[in-house]
């Protein structure tokens, strides 16, 4: 019965996937991307010593990047989406066991990834023809990537089993991946600093370095470089493959063991009140809605209100304060410039990350809780409603803007000469800003049509082709070429704006 249920789930998922045009478009997009690599390399054949290997290396890194995105969005929602739709109980009542549900949900997604990788096979043969890469290397690289996909699937199954909501599972997956990728650098830094301060001896330092290396070798981040070295002749069953497969299996088993405990009490998910929860009894009954009601609603319920803004500002201030102290201890000259530069760079990064996250939730939350139609029935145009919502989330960016401004005051020369004149004007910062605005529009549009993964998918759609372009032809592109692309980007942004409004109108009536 359990096996039949599992097969039924897998079959249904595969059928649905096959019928969706989206699935085939993604595969087509992927194939076109790889074709772009080949064309780029073919055009500059004279500059490459091993063109086939360079094509294949680009393919591998794109795969690795997309596998990480899949881990954050595709795999981390595997069980939480059933929890949120209250359908997990129905699956259990149908007699499907926990392992059956887990297998039935994870397998189709894993197969989807395998199919996406298999699209590339004809091109890998081209890479061999171009020269510089052997069939053994290709085989080992795909084994490494597939093992990483199994790890992502296991991690997704585990976190989506123990977490109540997709957003939490996705956040924890991101945090886990970030920790694994950053850990080796942090360990090396810590080992070096502690050795310098004579807190540890050379043996301990070397042990820390070894630990960092082992962690690095557990992901394709470390193993792909080894595989793509000329003369690679090792077994495809590398340390990374064994560790990833084992960890994937262990995480899957843990998900199985914890499944009953974590999914026993099915409760309807409800919109979060966030920081407003603190004031339900004390303040909310007395405080009144602002005249700009939509701004009030989104400020309080989407961003968390004044409390969340103040907490975020304090957190940024404390973090940046600590970093400033560290910098002033290390640097002897131009302390103010260094501190100011750090504040500005950090806050710019924070803003780049925060903006798409908030904007992807702007309409998604209304659609999720079926409140969008009521909002659109207000005697306001769609544009005014959308602008009101934007104004509501804007204060969430204030903490980062305030700290950035402080940084600009501390290091005005850095702001003017480096950040504005050099990065923005001379080094194509303006180009990337336009691409970023387009990416944000794509993300908002995707948030209206997909249930999860709008942010990573939107970023990958815009950023990956741009990175490839800049890394190859874009390096030597004339200002005319860049300006033409910028105009196209601007037009595409306008197009996406129109699409967003159109989609919002359609969704209001459904």
């Amino acid at each position: 019965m359990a096996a039949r249920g599992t097969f039924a789930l897998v079959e249904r998922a595969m059928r649905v996937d096959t019928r969706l045009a989206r699935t085939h478009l993604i595969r087509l997009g992927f194939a076109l991307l790889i074709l772009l690599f080949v064309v780029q390399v073919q055009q500059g054949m004279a500059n490459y010593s091993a063109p086939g290997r360079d094509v294949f290396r680009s393919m591998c890194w794109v795969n690795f990047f997309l596998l990480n995105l899949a881990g954050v969005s595709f795999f981390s929602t595997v069980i939480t989406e059933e929890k949120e739709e209250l359908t997990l109980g129905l699956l259990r009542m149908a007699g499907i066991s926990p392992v059956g549900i887990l297998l039935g949900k994870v397998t189709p997604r894993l197969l989807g990834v395998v199919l996406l990788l298999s699209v590339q096979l004809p091109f890998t043969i081209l890479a061999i023809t171009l020269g510089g890469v052997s069939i053994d290397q290709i085989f080992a690289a795909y084994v490494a990537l597939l093992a990483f996909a199994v790890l992502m699937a296991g991690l997704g199954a585990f976190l989506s089993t123990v977490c109540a909501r997709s957003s939490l599972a996705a956040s924890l997956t991101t945090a886990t991946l970030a920790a694994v990728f950053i850990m080796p650098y942090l360990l090396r830094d810590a080992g070096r600093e502690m050795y310098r301060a004579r807190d540890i001896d050379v043996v301990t330092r070397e042990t820390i370095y070894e630990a960092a290396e082992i962690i690095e070798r557990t992901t394709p981040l470390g193993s792909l470089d080894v595989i793509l070295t000329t003369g690679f002749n090792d077994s495809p069953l590398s340390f990374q493959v064994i560790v990833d497969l084992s960890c994937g299996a262990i995480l899957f088993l843990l998900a199985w063991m914890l499944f009953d405990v974590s999914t026993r009490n099915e409760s309807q998910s409800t919109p979060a009140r966030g920081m407003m929860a603190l004031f339900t009894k004390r303040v909310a009954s007395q405080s009144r809605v602002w005249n700009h009601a939509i701004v009030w609603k989104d400020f309080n319920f989407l961003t968390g209100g004044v409390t969340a803004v103040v907490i975020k500002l304090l957190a940024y201030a404390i973090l940046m304060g600590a970093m400033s102290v560290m910098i002033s201890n290390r640097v002897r000259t131009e302390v103010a410039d260094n501190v100011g530069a750090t504040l500005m760079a950090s806050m710019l990064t924070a803003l780049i990350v925060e903006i798409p996250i908030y904007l992807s939730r702007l309409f998604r939350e209304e659609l999720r809780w079926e409140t969008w139609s009521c909002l659109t029935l207000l005697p306001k145009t769609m544009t005014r409603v959308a602008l009101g919502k934007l104004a509501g989330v804007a204060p969430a960016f204030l903490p980062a803007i305030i700290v950035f401004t402080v940084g600009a005051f501390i290091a005005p020369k850095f702001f003017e000469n480096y950040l504005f004149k050099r990065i923005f004007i001379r080094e194509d910062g303006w180009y990337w800003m336009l691409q970023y605005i387009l990416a944000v529009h794509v993300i908002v549009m995707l948030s209206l049509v997909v249930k999860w993964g709008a942010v990573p998918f939107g970023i990958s759609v815009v950023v990956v082709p741009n990175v490839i372009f800049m890394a190859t032809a874009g390096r030597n592109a004339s200002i005319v070429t860049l300006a033409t692309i910028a105009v196209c980007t601007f037009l595409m942004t306008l197009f996406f704006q129109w699409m967003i409004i159109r989609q919002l109108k359609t969704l209001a009536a459904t």
Partner: protein
Amino acid sequence: MTPPEPQPASNEPAVVLRGVQHSFRKFKALVDINFDVPSQSLHGFVGPNGAGKTTVLKLICTLLKPQTGKVEVFGRDVATDYLEVRRRLGFMPDHFSMYRQMTVYEYLDFFAAAYGLPLETRTKVLDDVLELTDMGGKRTELINGLSRGMQQRVGLARVLVNDPDILLLDEPASGLDPRARIELMDVLRALRSMGKTIIISSHILSELAELCDSVTIIDRGTIRYCGTMHELLDHQAEYPTYRLTPAEPLNGLRDKLGEATGIVSVEEVEGSVDVRVAFDPQQVDSNGVLRAAMDVGITVTGFARAQRHLNQAFMDLTEKGVR
């Protein structure tokens, strides 16, 4: 918002639909819809699942734009004058479309502010709608923690905050317990007496029959009936039918009555000793039927023209099966 004296229904239609068609891709949801809803009336809107009720309501409330034809609310075209139509209209959808993380008061205050009511007016309006819907005691409660019936009341209170002239209620009584349903109907009667035009889509026909002044029956995207409730229920099929109440069960006398001149059929009324007698008016009149009943030995205690129940009218006018 204290209920004033009932006002007579106005002759000017509140809603007019002319030649409206609407398709979702290849599926024709509405085929040439024409009907009027009288102003200040309580209008029932009934039809089987998938008949096109919600599509019509969405067209009236401006969520959908008519593909062909014209929809007017108080003389305003919903396609071009949608902002003005939205100001005069309140729509309560069939699903619980609510900011459930808000308290009742926050929720109503939010919509009042969104409709542009100034702060000083809002307090009075919210107190009134909370009183009307009997939700005053729950104003600081989170909507999420309220029962379905209570949430339905909050939904009704929400559509009242901008004091609309017309209310569109899509299945407002679905999922409510009997008490909540009866209380909801009382609120609707009170609103009708305040001069509001109310269009109510529901499957609970017995309550609609009691509540509504007029009714529209829609099936497979076409209007099957639009008129007063009285005319619909009074409308006879082929032959006039009277309800006869005997002093005791008829037993064999039923067949004897059926054999009398001009009597077409004698049917038992389920759950009572009464019978429905249909006759051919060409051969006999109602007096003749009564005389024939007494002639066969029936002691008659009641004899009146039989009205159809809305259920029966609905079954007669709609087709079996789904689209």
